[in-house]
């Protein structure tokens, strides 16, 4: 039996938790497309899931080599969106932890931080361009550019949300680096 459901989740940690709760109930994710999750019925707790952000698109040679390597260790990629991949492993073969030392944990978090901060900068530049148009319209043309003003407000709010996404891994990196001073 296959089931599918729509859901909008912005936080990958919450998403991962939800997928693992579903898997524990015997609903194992095997596909994702445009916000639609597809599940297959399996025995409860058969799989453990992890969501990973790749450094390159899943179709790039680097990512293909990495995913092939993971496959050799029993980790299967069931779906991907943008650079994010949904990975699963059979629970019977032990715990599922992709990264087991501080160095690689920091590297993973940096990839995430960089992704969000790139978006924040992009938003900021577009917002600044719109703001310039608002000021130009108001002072030079003598007309209020309401559409651009709306864009500025929208982009600033979105930017703040993305900034928050980026700050989360940034904070974790900071505490891991402190830990790294005394242990590996």
């Amino acid at each position, binding site marked *: 039996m296959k089931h599918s459901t729509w859901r909008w989740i912005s936080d990958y940690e919450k998403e991962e938790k939800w997928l693992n709760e579903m898997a524990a109930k015997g609903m194992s994710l095997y596909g994702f497309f445009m916000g639609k999750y597809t599940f297959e019925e399996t025995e409860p707790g058969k799989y453990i899931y992890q969501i*990973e952000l790749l450094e390159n698109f899943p179709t790039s040679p680097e990512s293909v080599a*990495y995913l092939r*390597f*993971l496959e*050799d*260790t*029993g*980790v299967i990629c069931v779906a991907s969106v943008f650079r994010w991949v949904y990975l699963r492993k059979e629970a019977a073969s*032990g*715990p599922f*932890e*992709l*990264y*087991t*030392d501080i*160095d*690689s944990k920091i*590297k*993973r978090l940096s990839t995430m931080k960089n992704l969000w901060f790139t978006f924040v900068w992009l938003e900021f530049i577009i917002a600044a361009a719109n703001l310039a148009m608002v000021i130009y319209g108001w002072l030079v043309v003598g007309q209020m550019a309401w559409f651009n003003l709306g864009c500025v407000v929208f982009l600033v709010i979105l930017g703040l949300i993305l900034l928050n996404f980026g700050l989360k891994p940034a904070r974790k990196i900071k505490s891991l680096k402190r830990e790294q001073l005394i242990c*590996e």
Partner: protein
Amino acid sequence: MTLTLEKSPLTEAAYYILLSLYEPMHGYGIMQNVKVMSSGRVNLGPGTLYGAISSLLEKGWIISAGESDSRKKEYQITEFGKKAVDCEIHRLEELLANGKKITGAKQ
């Protein structure tokens, strides 16, 4: 490929991977081998392992050694990698000797 031998300590992961590769081995084999060698203490995550293997290949401490019967990519340590392990053992011996000397004297 740049052959470098830094003085900095090896990570536990790198050290155990290098030791495992005195015989050709694929990724999953390394994970299993390290776990057995350390009596279950060191569990290498596949992400960490992949990153470490990539760095070791780049440094020229290990090389690809073809594919196993199950078509999995195998790796093997190079002479340069063995030198790195020797340096590390030397460093560990120093740590161990000093640790024993000081704590042993107080016990």
